[in-house]
């Protein structure tokens, strides 16, 4: 009798688990493609802000490699580098380094460097900086991030790749020095990485299309 009760109860629980999982599975199947498309659109939008569609003619989203450099790219995990080309010639590389020492933890950046070593631009992909103080690094809130445009390792000396407070040329914000300092540092590192690995960045074959979706 008790056994029978337990079996019925178990069956009810199992039945609802099956129904619940089915609902989730159906939704997942119906939205999977759309979610991936949304991810891709969001990323392409930020890539194309720095390297316009006219400047390149390759499939930016799929022309990507992953590299690991803890010191220069800020993470012990692989970091993506997208390559922009026109008629087969390298145009620019878009690095996605991490500035690990932001005020609110890691800041994910997108750093676009022209083949000649000049910055095409920098954008912040993700951050947890203080609203109202540190979030002026967002292009939508302030022009600060544009101050990197066209700079390179040759346009500024290593000593100048710092915020003004540390003797460099980049502004800090009132009440927030740590955030800009972290970004200036990370952008400088990215330029160094690019200079050291330029040919390898453009000559390494892309990841197979499947691999890049599993971050």
């Amino acid at each position: 009798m008790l056994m029978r009760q337990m079996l019925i109860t178990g069956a009810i629980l199992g039945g609802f688990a099956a129904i619940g999982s089915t609902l989730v599975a159906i939704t997942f199947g119906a939205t999977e493609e759309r979610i991936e498309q949304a991810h891709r659109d969001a990323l392409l939008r930020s890539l194309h802000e720095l390297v316009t569609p006219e400047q390149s003619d390759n499939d930016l989203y799929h022309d990507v490699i992953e590299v690991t450099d803890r010191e220069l790219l800020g993470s012990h995990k692989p970091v993506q580098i997208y390559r922009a080309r026109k008629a087969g010639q390298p145009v620019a590389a878009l690095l996605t380094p991490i500035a690990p020492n932001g005020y609110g933890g890691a800041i994910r950046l997108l750093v676009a460097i022209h083949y000649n070593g000049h910055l095409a631009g920098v954008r912040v992909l993700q951050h947890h900086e203080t609203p109202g103080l540190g979030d002026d690094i967002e292009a939508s809130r302030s022009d600060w991030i544009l101050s990197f445009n066209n700079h390179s390792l040759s346009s500024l000396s290593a000593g100048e790749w710092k915020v003004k407070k540390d003797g460099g040329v980049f502004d800090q914000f009132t009440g927030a020095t740590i955030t800009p300092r972290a970004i200036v540092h990370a952008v400088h590192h990215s330029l160094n990485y690019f200079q050291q690995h330029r040919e390898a960045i453009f000559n390494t074959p892309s990841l197979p299309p499947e691999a890049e979706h599993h971050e």
Partner: protein
Amino acid sequence: MSNTRYRDIAEQGLWQNNVAFVQLLGLCPLLAVSNNTINGLGLGMATLLVLVCSNVTVSLIRHWVRPEVRVPVFVMVIASFVTAIDLLMNAFMHDLHMILGIFIPLIVTNCAIIARAEAFASKHSPGYAFWDGLMMGLGFMAVLVVLGALREILGQGTLFDQAHLMFGSGAEWLTITLIEEYQGFLLAILPPGAFIGLGLMIATKNWLDQRGDKKIIHGANHQQTNTPVAPS
């Protein structure tokens, strides 16, 4: 008869037994996400949807679920709906989903939802359960939106900032800049602003209630005010 019942449920959900004001449930997402109006509205709608779906489902299955496994089954129902809604938001409101992030999956842990399933939906017919879910959800959403609006106005001098994240591009006109060249009031946007704001809102509600009570007592003593049936 049934009309007054519906009205009673609406009053309970929207005001007298409001999830955030009176039951003080679901405060974690409420405090974290209410830093602007659109975020509040996004989380509020997601919660509302989960609450309605789970209430109706729980009510429909209330005769089949044995008491011993009642809670796990309710949790499973809620978790399934939350996951499905999380996926749908990720697909159709991607940018807003990125901002709300972890707080959408965390709706599972919003005690208000299991509380309604257990205390109301499992004892009432689907019609009432639907109405209760809708009203409780709207009550919760209203608090989120009002708190979000207060913090946004005080914190950055705007209203409906980033409306395009929810309504698509072309909705930027919704954003209202109330105070030009506003320097911002950081405290309102940071977590303490949420606590202070919610505290003030609860105080205001209690003050309004007390004033109302006094009026009833002074005005007429022929009718007993309907006291809330059970504490939650």
